[in-house]
């Protein structure tokens, strides 16, 4: 039986040469993301913005966006966003945060139920008051920062400081571009999105660590090899694994996008993007960064050599 090989054995591809393209490219994309983030902005969900989200399913199977919008706007609860959603006959209805504190939000749901209950099934109702949404923003931000710091700390202990730096540059790059993906696609940004970003942080490091593990090992074996060549060798020898894992992760996420239903689709799409970006950055960003910060150049010093943990033989 002839088996599938996605990546040929023993390649000698010069990945490091691409840093002259990948660095300006990623820098430009990151800047573009920041510009878009500041001008267009994220499409914050009610978790972070507060307000009310209602998902309706037409009992007749056919939703009337226009009629629902007209009725909803007549409540005078602010501009109601009405969109078709999910399957046939599905609608999503969003009301902004009401002034008048926590209690004022409940009135919106009551009014909507009175108006639409007869023709539509209420599939989901979510109301988040101003205080809770503020706290969610806070805990979400803290979570992302904390995870980056915790992982940095871990890498610092397990690897050397310079390698940890390279990994963190790659991870930050992935976070920024993922946010860019949110901005461009206008996929709703909510608590699940934070989960997606943290998972991407994990995956990004996972990818980088596999390459760096090899770098560390080769560093010990070929003390005199120039940095560029050494990194190329690390990437080439782990490349077939990188392609394999990216493919399996991609396939499972693809199943999630295609069959997971509308509630999880956004999450799956972002993760799908994350897998691509993380694979790219592990090869073209994190590793070349090591050349720039001189992590490998000084590796010939004998003192450093002894700090490299010896793999079990």
């Amino acid at each position: 039986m002839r088996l599938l090989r996605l990546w040929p054995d023993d390649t000698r591809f010069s990945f490091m040469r691409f840093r002259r393209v990948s660095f300006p490219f990623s820098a430009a994309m990151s800047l573009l993301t920041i510009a878009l983030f500041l001008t267009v902005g994220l499409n914050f969900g009610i978790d972070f913005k507060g307000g009310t989200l209602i998902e309706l399913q037409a009992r007749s199977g056919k939703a009337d966006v226009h009629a629902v919008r007209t009725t909803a706007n007549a409540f005078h609860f602010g501009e109601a966003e009405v969109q078709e959603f999910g399957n046939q006959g599905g609608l999503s209805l969003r009301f902004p945060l009401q002034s008048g504190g926590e209690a004022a939000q409940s009135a919106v749901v009551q009014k909507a139920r009175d108006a639409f209950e007869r023709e539509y099934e209420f599939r989901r109702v979510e109301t988040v008051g101003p205080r809770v949404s503020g706290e969610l923003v806070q805990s979400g931000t803290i979570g992302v920062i904390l995870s980056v710091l915790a992982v940095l700390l871990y890498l610092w202990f397990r690897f050397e400081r310079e390698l940890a730096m390279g990994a963190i540059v790659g991870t930050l790059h992935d976070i920024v571009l993922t946010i860019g993906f949110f901005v461009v696609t206008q996929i709703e940004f909510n608590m699940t999105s934070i989960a997606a970003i943290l998972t991407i942080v994990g995956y990004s490091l996972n990818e980088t660590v596999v390459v760096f593990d090899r770098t560390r090992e080769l560093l010990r074996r070929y003390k005199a090899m120039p940095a560029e060549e050494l990194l190329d060798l690390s990437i080439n020898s782990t490349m077939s694994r990188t392609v394999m894992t990216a493919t399996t992760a991609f396939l499972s996420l693809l199943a999630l996008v295609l069959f997971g239903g509308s509630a999880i689709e956004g999450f799956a799409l972002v993760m799908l993007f994350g897998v691509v970006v993380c694979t790219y950055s592990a090869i073209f960003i994190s590793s070349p960064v090591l050349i720039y910060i001189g992590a490998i150049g000084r590796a010939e010093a004998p003192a450093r050599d002894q700090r490299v943990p010896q793999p079990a033989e």
Partner: protein
Amino acid sequence: MLRFSTSKIVATIGFIVIGLLLAVPSLFTPQQRQGFVQSIPSWVPAWMVPTRAIVLGLDLQGGSHVLLEVDVADLVRGRTGLVNQLRDDVRRVLRDNRASVEGGIQVTQRGVQLRISDPNERARIAPKLRELSQPISNVILGQTGARNVDIAESPDGLFQLTLTEQGLNDRVRRAVDQAIEVLRRRVDALGTTEPNIQRQGADRILVQVPGLQDPQRLKEILGQTAKLEFRMVAEPGATDVDLLPSKETPGQTQAIERRVIVEGGDLTDAQPGFDNRTGEPVVNFKFNIRGAQRFGQTTSENVGRLLAIVLDNQVISAPRILSPITGGSGQISGRFTVQQANDLSVLLRAGALPAKLTIVEERTVGPGLGKDSIEAGKHATYVATVFVVIFMFATYGLFGFFANIALLVHVGLIFGLLSILQATLTLPGIAGIVLTIGTAVDSNVLIYERIREEVHAGRSIVSAIQAGFDRAFATIIDSNSTMAIAAVILFFMGSGPVRGFAVVFILGILTTVITAVTLTRMMIALWYHYARPKALPF
């Protein structure tokens, strides 16, 4: 080590079989599980039979999640709040000791102040006032040394009584405890299955009710303070009155005497019923002895006047007292619908909340959406598994087959662990399972690629396999640790559905290390032992 001792094989298989057995109950409906439990012979110890099924989150089984917050401002500054209670206490002390103060008692931001200029009088009253400051006792810490009221006395005779931070926190804590009890009684009266009511943070209560048909009604039942008072409608020209809105004539207010005759706490029972004469839905109630006495006395003294029934500062109705009501029971009318009368009696039976609660977050998922999400999740899991299984087999052949067995065991173990831990499976949790299907094989891929490299470097098969497992192991630990760190942080900061994702992810990392490393190594070792291959199968 490519040689597995028999005991090691037995241990590994035993662990996996137990893990998988734990997942079995989830395959059946609760009725089927019940039948199974009854059918096992009595000599089998109960703990040996796995009966726990996976707990589905509200987003999958449908239901309501309501987060309520104690209105601390109302608790402190409200009409019957702590500041006013303190003022009443001070007033009582002064009255009991026949002391008078110039300028009266002033209410401050978080307490009261009063001035006693005469030094002799001050010396006489000061100790009495100090008795108002009570030590706070704590169930856990015992006497903490903190007091509920801070009393400052200035040389010119100004007393400032301020509620302390600790005293306030203690009151909020107690209010939450009492409120949880009241809410539990209320929710139980709705007859729903397995509601979950718990404290969250310092001043919040989380109520989760699965599979509720009418979430709006739940919110109404949760949110009402249900403070019932019987008070007299004021005569014209009376002082010491409150202007309260009337339910019967919306938009109008009625002057009601401040003095409360009987409170909801004096009720022993409340039941919905119908008025004999009009057929209108009403609530019939019974007083305890104290309530019956006071109610009887007041109604005898005030025949012909109007009696206001006040619920949460709204006048429900104000019937005329036609004759003394001494039997200790009565009836509340107020143009109720049948359901309103029903709910009001539930609220009165359960008792009033110790403080006003505000709904700060609500998330309700209809049962239809939950069912659809489960279906979609199952579908995605199957498809992802098929994709990955085919791909792994196409790439690694027999070794891919080993990895696939490990993958299936991995998914089964996640379900087994979720069942035994009774962790909640949410929709993001299902997404986590699908994602780990893609990433679980990573460990196998790392090992296999390493083995291939070692063979290319000229090693024999057995030593290549050996080296592949050994060398890849450090990488597997490193790469999974970084994933685990992110997942643990997500677990601690996330709530509800997102936490479900983190749980699955953490469990997935654990099981993948076990299955990908131990189980596949065992399979490969056995294969090598029996097949004695000359070349790698991939």
